[in-house]
């Protein structure tokens, strides 16, 4: 027994042994990573979830001064039919005092003919603070700036969906959308 141990000790090629150790560890780490990938990726959005990610909305039924709310993939969106006064309030405002300055026109998308329809404002319905759904004209509260008010932590948005007061860091997001015709918008996630 003791002879055998001595002979092997003499014959050990340390470099070869290191190579085997490193190769074995590398293969194990690589294999573990390859096993982990599908188990992590399975939690991402599934194919059918992704597929249900756009919606055509007819805006001709939105009452003046009101809004409709739609869900796409469970996410809320607001389509608001603004009154001339609301549009004027959104346009004639000092941008320099806003936390996230943006002109009203920057928050609109052109119609098929390239002009703008400022009467219809399309925004995300998730407060940029922690994702609550702000209340609007239909819920009886529009905040200090006439747009939306988030009851969770008191963020006030104006008639262009821009943050004016409260903890939210940014304006209500403008989703990716296009005017399919003069009365239909296609909103995509």
């Amino acid at each position: 027994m003791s002879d055998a141990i001595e002979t092997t000790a003499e014959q050990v090629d340390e470099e070869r042994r290191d190579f085997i150790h490193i190769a074995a560890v590398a293969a194990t780490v690589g294999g573990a990573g390859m096993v982990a990938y599908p188990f992590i990726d399975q939690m991402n959005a599934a194919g059918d979830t992704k597929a249900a990610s756009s919606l055509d909305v007819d805006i001709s039924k939105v009452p003046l001064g009101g809004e409709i709310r739609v869900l796409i993939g469970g996410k809320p969106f607001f389509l608001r039919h603004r009154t001339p006064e609301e549009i004027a309030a959104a346009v004639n405002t000092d941008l320099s005092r806003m936390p996230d300055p943006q002109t009203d026109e920057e928050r609109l998308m052109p119609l098929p003919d390239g002009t703008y329809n400022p009467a219809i404002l399309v925004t995300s319905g998730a407060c940029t603070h922690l994702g609550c759904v702000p209340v609007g004209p239909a819920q009886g509260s529009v905040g200090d700036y006439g747009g939306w008010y988030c009851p969770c932590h008191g963020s006030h948005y104006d008639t262009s969906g821009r943050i004016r007061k409260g903890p939210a860091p940014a304006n209500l997001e403008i989703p990716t959308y296009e005017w399919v015709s003069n009365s239909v918008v296609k909103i995509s996630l």
Partner: protein
Amino acid sequence: MSGHESTYEPKLGITKWLDDRLPIVRLAHDSFVDFPTPKNLNYWYTFGGILAVCLVIQIVTGVVLAMHYTASVEGAFGSVERIMRDVPFGWLIRNIHMVGASMFFLAVYVHMFRGLYYGSYKAPREVLWLLGCIIFLLMMATAFLGYMLPWGQMSLHGANVIINLFGAIPLVGESIQSWLMGGPSVGNQTLQRFFSLHYLLPFMIAGVVILHIWALHVPGNNNPTGIEVQEVEKDTIPFHPYYTVKDGFAIVVFLIIFAVFVFYAPNVLGHADNYVEANPLVTPTHIVPEWYLLPFYAILRAITFNIGPIDAKLLGVIFMFGSIAVLFALPWLDTSKVKSMRYRPVAKQFFFGFVIACLLLSWCGAENPDNPIIKMGDDKLVITYTDAAGLDGSRTFEDYAPAAQFRDETLASGGAASLGIQVAPAFRFLHLSQLMTLYYFAYFLLILPMLGLRERPKGEPDSIHHSILGNEAPAAAPAE
């Protein structure tokens, strides 16, 4: 304590046979029967046993509820209502599970404050404390996941707020967020994974509890004096029957309080909003977590300012997670050699201040941060006007009638006027939560590290048995 000689002697043939193959009875005997335990443990030390009972109750009732629950957005709310109305004794089992979560946290907070007061986190029990912190984290995760399952308004929107916190992480935040939700929003797929994980985590807690007890049994229990056991004969008594009976009595009292909630006020610790089925288009006016998470929620909301490039939202998240992370560092932050606050006259006062800070943070977490606590003056009415001559101005009024009269006169004369409210300055919940957040972190990061170096401890007894008999008591046997 580990290293104490096993006194287990198998008497029957079968127990001898088993002892040679799997000495599990010996392990139980050495851990819970003839385990030398300091003789001066008070009732604050019974909460470990109470917590074990809580975990068993939650697992047993939870497994039963899972037999009747449907994890889908169409079925979840209805299946919970069915459990409450149609499933035999479903109302009882669900109430126990629901109240059980609160009782579990009540017990764990007492257990943690006990550890803080008697210095149970100090050498040689750092690993014991760390494992406890891990259990606490797992408990919070489990409670959060479970609160989502009834698919009420608070379930959905509470989950939404918490998952949105991850969005504050720069660069990868949004990917993490949609990875957690499994889609663009909290939906069916989110509910299913939350259910799966809610079922898994309690068993992970049970696993860590075993490690926690193991780590307890290596150095043995701390005790109210914070002095280690010196003479096993004089300082300790066997766990059974002394502490099985003491723990048993405490468990019975605890279960009576538990039962009062289950039978008389099962919903008093919850929110009525959660009995409204989840609606992603309507957020409840006041989103609040369950009471046991309120202090952390208050810390999250206390941060309303940016520091350098870090914005308030991310900073709030950092502070909230930091308030738990700091617990992990505690064994190395407290520099005092004396464990028990009994003999730390100054630290003791700061400790009770800390308890009060935690309670006040809970209060802040439940309230709207903008609500005033102490008002300085009254709110006033403001009329902003442009008069007929085209001059702008504003006037403040105490009462409505003169304000309305002024507005109407301005309007009648061809000007424009609007009415607003000028809110009086006040000491608000936001300010209180900011002060208490400051104290929370100062306690761990400034007070405990500095105080340990400066404080003069007093009146420490020589040993555990001296603490009971007095230092002058004649020694029954000569030392050594």
